[in-house]
């Protein structure tokens, strides 16, 4: 499993240390993380769909010799607490109080983006607006007068191109001027209808808020309907004020309506539009979201991904393996043979075997998958897939939005579970997380393709995916009925289709592979050496014996396979690598029957979702839930593994 680097940044708020803080705030998918990378030189993962960043990312930069901290916050449509990621961003702005807010705005969607801008202005915190995707406007025949916008809003507006890095210098210069108090800011103030203003005034009188202006705090209380957290006596009077001032609609809806209205007004004042003909993007968009063509294109895309993984990954795997055996193992063998000390000799032979297995199994499949995922992410296709699959997802009591974490889950379960934060409630998050533990991540795909695909045939690899998919649907269906509550339903913005940047895809792939190389390889080598030593002193049989009833009798696997399953807890693909090391051959068929290979792979795919996943489950959902999930997957793996083995024997498949 990759991307453990995410774990290091899991804090729900940034801790102010030395230096000044600049927070990047904006709607989802406006290029905040891209700007963050430019400002800090760091590598945050950026993609073309809303909700890529669900964590707080912190970095540093120097402006005029001064150290400044940059904080990238998850994208939000409004300062509210409607979902986990929105709450995180809101709390970090209002409670941590950065010295400057850079509001990143998508110039293409000025009206919609200005809604959040107006809400941020109500906080009266030092702020500037970075107008991103400014260069895309021209193709669409739109012009935005940033000077006029600046005078209307009362804060500096800087057009930027976060992808290419244009306008960044001016952004930094303006930032430092604001930080040094050299620019006077006049915050635009939304004036609401009389009955709303009356409620705001009354509420701001009875609440105590020192961090944000009373007016903003009062609006916030009405909009969030967050009355329960107040003291009893207060909440009664708050309710009364809201009730007395309400008219036709709910007060919070009316606030929202008026803010939208003023955003539209401002946007209309500064924008000019020429009508131009439909672009290729629009045809492509239509094609991929019409029910029929959309389903067909989705199936084709998934088929291409799978065949690329199988054939390209398989080809690379063979190539790397041959290179390693001829180039490294071959020349080294005479040298190792000549070592007199048995312990060192064993360690070296087994260690090399481990590296060989690692290179052949994990690296090619995982790298190929991440490049393909990068393409899907950066074009903006993923949310369309969520739309097409919404109906199917309803059958397992989820909705389309859960597709995005699930597709990420084919890469690595850890960031996928973190990305469930964009889902609207806890029930959906847990349900999705449980299913995510069953989805074959790229490490498990490496095992499926590297063992079953390579030695038994592609159709059996597909059969494993089929079985897993069926289990996911079944578990989802049952859990959806058992877990209390209803799913809220799909609300998902479609990003514009964009041409992916190769540089970004390669960088992302490297970021996601880095952990594999730095964490997995040492593990593989150490693990192999330990196995080698255990074997040398004849300890292996003693250790594996107690598990024999399950491993040998029920699952009908070689007894030694038990110990490799323990390794799989550390990282999934380790199980296969260690199996090859233990079996003393990279050709599994030398020491296992096809049925055993199939069952082994199925069990590896299903059981305990690796330490990294367990840690993130614990962090997001607590000990009880994570232990339950882990326990559940182990039981499921053992039961299904044994049943399938018997079924195959009975029917005569793979025997």
């Amino acid at each position, binding site marked *: 499993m990759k991307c453990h680097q995410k774990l290091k940044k899991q804090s729900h708020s940034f801790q102010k240390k030395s230096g000044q803080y600049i927070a990047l705030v904006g709607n989802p998918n406006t290029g905040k993380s891209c700007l963050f990378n430019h400002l800090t030189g760091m590598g945050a993962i950026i993609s073309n769909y809303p909700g890529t960043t669900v964590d707080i990312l912190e970095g540093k930069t120097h402006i005029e010799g001064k150290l400044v901290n940059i904080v990238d916050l998850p994208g939000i*449509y*409004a300062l*509210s607490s*409607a*979902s986990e990621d929105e709450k995180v961003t809101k709390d970090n702005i209002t409670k941590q109080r950065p010295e400057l807010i850079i509001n990143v705005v998508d110039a*293409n*969607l000025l*009206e*919609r983006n200005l*809604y*959040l801008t107006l809400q941020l202005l109500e906080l009266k915190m030092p702020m500037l607006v970075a107008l991103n995707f400014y260069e895309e406007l021209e193709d669409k025949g739109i012009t935005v007068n940033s000077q006029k916008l600046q005078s209307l809003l009362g804060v500096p507006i800087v057009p930027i191109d976060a992808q290419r890095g244009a306008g960044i210098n001016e952004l930094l210069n303006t930032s430092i001027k604001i930080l040094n108090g050299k620019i006077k800011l006049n915050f635009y103030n939304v004036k609401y209808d009389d009955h709303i203003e009356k409620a705001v005034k009354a509420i701001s009188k009875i609440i105590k808020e020192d961090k944000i202006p009373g007016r903003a705090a009062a609006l916030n209380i009405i*909009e*969030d*309907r967050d009355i329960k957290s107040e003291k009893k006596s207060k909440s009664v009077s708050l309710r009364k004020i809201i009730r007395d001032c309400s008219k036709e*609609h*709910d007060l*919070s*809806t*009316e606030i*929202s*309506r008026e803010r*939208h209205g003023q955003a*539209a007004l401002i946007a209309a004042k500064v924008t000019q539009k020429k009508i131009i003909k439909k672009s290729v993007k629009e045809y492509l*968009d*239509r094609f991929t*979201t*019409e*029910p029929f063509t959309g389903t067909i294109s989705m199936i084709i895309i998934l088929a291409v991904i799978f065949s690329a993984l199988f054939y390209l990954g398989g080809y690379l795997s063979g190539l790397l393996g041959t290179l390693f055996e001829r180039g490294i193992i071959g020349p080294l063998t005479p040298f190792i043979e000549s070592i007199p000390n048995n312990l060192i000799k064993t360690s070296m032979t087994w260690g090399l075997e481990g590296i060989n297995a690692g290179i052949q199994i994990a690296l090619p499949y995982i790298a190929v998958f991440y490049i393909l995922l990068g393409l899907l992410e950066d074009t903006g296709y993923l*949310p369309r897939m*969520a*739309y*097409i699959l*919404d*109906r199917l997802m*309803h059958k397992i009591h989820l*909705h*389309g939005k859960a597709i995005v974490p699930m597709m990420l889950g084919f890469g690595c379960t850890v960031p996928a579970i973190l990305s469930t934060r964009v889902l*609207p*409630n806890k029930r959906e998050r847990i349900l999705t997380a449980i299913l995510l533990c069953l989805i074959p991540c790229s490490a498990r795909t490496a095992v499926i393709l590297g063992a079953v695909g390579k030695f038994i045939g592609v159709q059996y690899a597909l059969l494993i995916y089929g079985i897993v998919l069926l289990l996911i649907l079944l578990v989802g269906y049952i859990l959806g009925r058992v877990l209390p509550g*209803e799913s*809220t*339903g*799909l*609300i*998902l*913005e*479609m990003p514009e289709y964009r041409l992916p940047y190769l540089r970004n895809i390669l960088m992302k792939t490297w970021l996601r592979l880095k952990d594999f190389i730095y964490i997995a390889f040492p593990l593989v080598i150490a693990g192999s050496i330990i196995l080698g030593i255990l074997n040398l002193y004849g300890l292996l049989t003693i250790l594996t014996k107690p598990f024999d009833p399950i491993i040998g009798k029920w699952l009908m696997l070689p007894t030694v396979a038990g110990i490799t399953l323990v390794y799989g807890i550390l990282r999934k693909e380790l199980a296969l690598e260690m199996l090859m090391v233990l079996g003393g051959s990279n050709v599994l068929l030398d020491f296992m029957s096809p049925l055993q290979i199939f069952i082994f792979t199925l069990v590896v795919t299903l059981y305990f979702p690796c330490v990294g996943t367990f840690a993130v489950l614990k962090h997001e959902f607590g000990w009880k839930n994570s232990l339950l999930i882990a326990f559940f997957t182990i039981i499921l793996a053992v039961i299904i593994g044994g049943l399938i083995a018997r079924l195959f024997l009975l029917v005569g498949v793979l025997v």
Partner: protein
Amino acid sequence: MSKSKEDYLGEIYRIQFSNNRAAKITEIAAALKISKPSVSEMARNLSREGLVLFEKYGGVSLTKEGIEKARHILRKHRLLEVFFNRILKIKGKFHLEAHKIEHGLSEEAADKLEQVLNNPNVCPDGDPIPAKKGKILRLTELSEKAKASVLFATSEEKNCIQRLNSLGIVPKAKIEILRRIRHGPLMVMLKGREVALGPDICSNIFVEKDEMSSKTKKAKS
């Protein structure tokens, strides 16, 4: 039209548009408290009259004519509910009371009632009152390419409304249906960007069709 036929249409309408899918025989039977075979029989009758589409395993869905009829009945029913609840202050049993006399209420009387009640939008349960000329529609009742203005949205969850609000689904907002998947989500254009909305959410967004194309009250089931 016999009394029970009207009840069927009303019930199918309710199920179809609050879930955006065909009504199942079991659901109709449970709601009207009658046996499944008699529901099936009635469904076949209605289907023969061209009021519903009846697929053995897919369930029952109203045709355009069926929708028109059902809206008529529901309008009377819900206006009466408002009357019993608001004017006569009958709590709880207003539904039953309305049920008893809705079938006898004439068109003229219903119009007068609406006037007296000051053109209410929703019944005491929060369901929309269909207008005589199709004033309020659920978003799910609109066909592709239709443009509409949002009237209001309802939801059990407060977060959902807040989310819709921040995206721009507020009263009077313009919304355009781009594409839809049968019994599935809708793709709408909202403030210059496409947004996918699930069927359950759409059926709780109430809209008014824009005048340009409002001559045909077409609803896809």
